[in-house]
């Protein structure tokens, strides 16, 4: 997979793609809208657009509520054959101690349904999560056109 344009490194703005701050409920809506435009631009089908926007909504909310805010880096990607959308969510929150547990359906720290991470993973083609307790969490998802 190649990222079509160079992007920002952790937490910094860059020239590639689009970096969106996530600091409020309204920012979660803005992330959804930006992912929608990118998904349309990458020629995703309506169902795939809906899936990746929904996954982004779950992950942006996680960034806000569990990570204490952060940012999303959104870009279009291509592997030569297909186009897609890649979104990276980064926060500097408390991190996740047990990733396997956090990825299970129904795992929740209290307020939600526990579907955010596990559900988002089911909705995308590629899912990567890195988390260091005390330092933060980075979740990267990719959805490809069919």
């Amino acid at each position, binding site marked *: 997979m190649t990222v079509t344009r160079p992007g920002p490194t952790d937490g910094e703005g860059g020239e590639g793609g689009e970096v969106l701050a996530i600091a409020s409920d309204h920012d*979660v809506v803005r992330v959804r809208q930006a992912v929608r435009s990118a998904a349309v631009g990458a020629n995703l089908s309506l169902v795939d657009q809906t899936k990746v*926007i929904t996954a982004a*909504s779950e992950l942006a909310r996680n960034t806000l509520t569990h990570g204490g805010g952060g940012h999303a880096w959104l870009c279009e990607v291509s592997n030569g054959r297909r186009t897609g959308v890649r979104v990276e969510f980064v926060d500097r929150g408390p991190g996740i101690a047990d990733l396997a547990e956090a990825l299970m359906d129904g795992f929740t720290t209290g307020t939600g349904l526990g579907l955010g991470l596990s559900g988002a993973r089911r909705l995308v083609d590629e899912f990567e999560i890195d988390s260091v307790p005390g330092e933060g969490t980075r979740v990267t998802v990719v959805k490809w056109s069919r």
Partner: protein
Amino acid sequence: MERVPVLNLGDVLLVSIQIDLSDDIALRLQDDLAERIVATGARGVIIDITALDIVDSFVGRTLSTIAGISRVLDATTVVVGMRPAVAITLVELGLSLSGVATALNVELGLQRLRQALSDGTAAPAPSRDLVR
């Protein structure tokens, strides 16, 4: 903050969500509806989500909560107009809109409410409940 308007239609409250729902607006709708049901004595609530291009876990949970709140306030909620892509995504996300009755459009939703009310049962068993 923006608000989702709630319309009075006889003994039914009609809500047509035409904006991209942020979490706080969704929660406000939940509170507004509870107050309006009590204030108007409405027996039914129709929530039209035709314009929503996604329903994520938060909005899904809010819909379930609204249905639950209306039930204990003696009103029946029917969610109408879900797009096919939204239904597919919801199920894959793992969300069961438990306790939420659904219908394909406002007209069918009203029919469903009329039936439920004439049967004398406030809350019908949801027949189109998505996932168990």
